[in-house]
């Protein structure tokens, strides 16, 4: 992650991009609430296959973002034991599993990486 080259993206393009990001984030949050509350039908108005597919999206997208950030940190597969991220997964996973605490898990992971860097120099 380098420092932004001021020439690559103009500042007003960043604002427009953020507004577009806001729109594509807001619509999936809003539309099911509005559409499913229109009719009297209780329960789901979505086709079962679509609902089932949507139910798998959270897990799939999180795994798809997570694993490459751990094992392909710089564009190359890195499964060596000096890859600190690989080790930091363990306390993060255990903390999340045992405490169900988001902040606790994040702090456990960050602390592992920080301590690892301190020890390894």
């Amino acid at each position, binding site marked *: *992650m380098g*420092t*932004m080259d001021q020439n690559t*993206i103009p500042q007003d393009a*960043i*604002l*427009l*991009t*953020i*507004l*577009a*990001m*806001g729109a*594509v*984030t*807001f619509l*999936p949050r*809003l539309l099911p*609430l*509005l559409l*499913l*509350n229109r009719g009297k039908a209780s329960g789901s108005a979505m086709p079962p*296959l679509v*609902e*089932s*597919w*949507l*139910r*798998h*999206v*959270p*897990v*799939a*997208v*999180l*795994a*798809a*973002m997570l*694993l*490459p950030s751990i*094992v*392909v940190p710089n564009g190359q*597969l890195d499964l060596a034991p000096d890859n600190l*991220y690989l080790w*930091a997964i363990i306390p*993060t*996973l255990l903390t*999340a599993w045992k405490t*169900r605490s*988001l*902040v606790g*898990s*994040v*702090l*456990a*992971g*960050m602390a592992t990486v*920080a301590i690892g*860097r*301190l020890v390894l120099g």
Partner: protein
Amino acid sequence: MPTESSTAQTTRVQPAWQRGLTQATPIILGYVPIGFAYGVMAQKSGLSTAHTVGMSLIVYAGASQFIATGLFAAGIPALSIVITTFVVNLRHMLMSAAMAPHLKTWTKPQLTAFAYELTDETFAVHAARFAGHKPDRAEVFWINALAQMAWVTGSYLGTVGGQVVPDPKPWGLDFALPALFVALLVLQIRDRLQIGIALATGVLAVTFTIWGLDRWAVILATLVGATLGVIWEQWTKTRSHKTRSY
């Protein structure tokens, strides 16, 4: 702010903002430090303070904001950033659908305001709360508003901290996002099928990344992974129907 319950004469009922604060406290404790990490990373990748905080106000979706800072820094085209954001945040559709039956009496403006601040964490709190209570509009809005305030405040503090802290690496701040993914993943997983989907999708994403598909890797792997999950579900369902009918 008058509410359904506090318009009564009783003084023992806490005001809505206090009940909201009690409910929102675990979220606030999570959002301030994670927002801080986002603010530092955004500042380090060259985003202005206004854009960093603006993203927390306008987009308000942690994971995609972290990703966007990296993409902005790498000079990735805007369209790719928007598509990535869309796919990453598509999961909220399911949460929105799950909230719908509880909010049948709400007006459209109320639903719109609610949807704007629907996140993984507020969803988790509301889902637990609605299971046993009739939703109290004022309390729900306070939970959502306080949560986003915490996120925006954390982001701003991060941009300030980013100018003070020369290098976020010794603090492990660069691991905040992967750790957030791990925790969200663990909280989402309910059965073996989902563990299978997570592993398959993760391996696919790694493969696509190594092949050089880069930012498309997440989108492609997610589409394939979720579809594999549906196919697996349908296949086991028909198989169990067959075994039962014989």
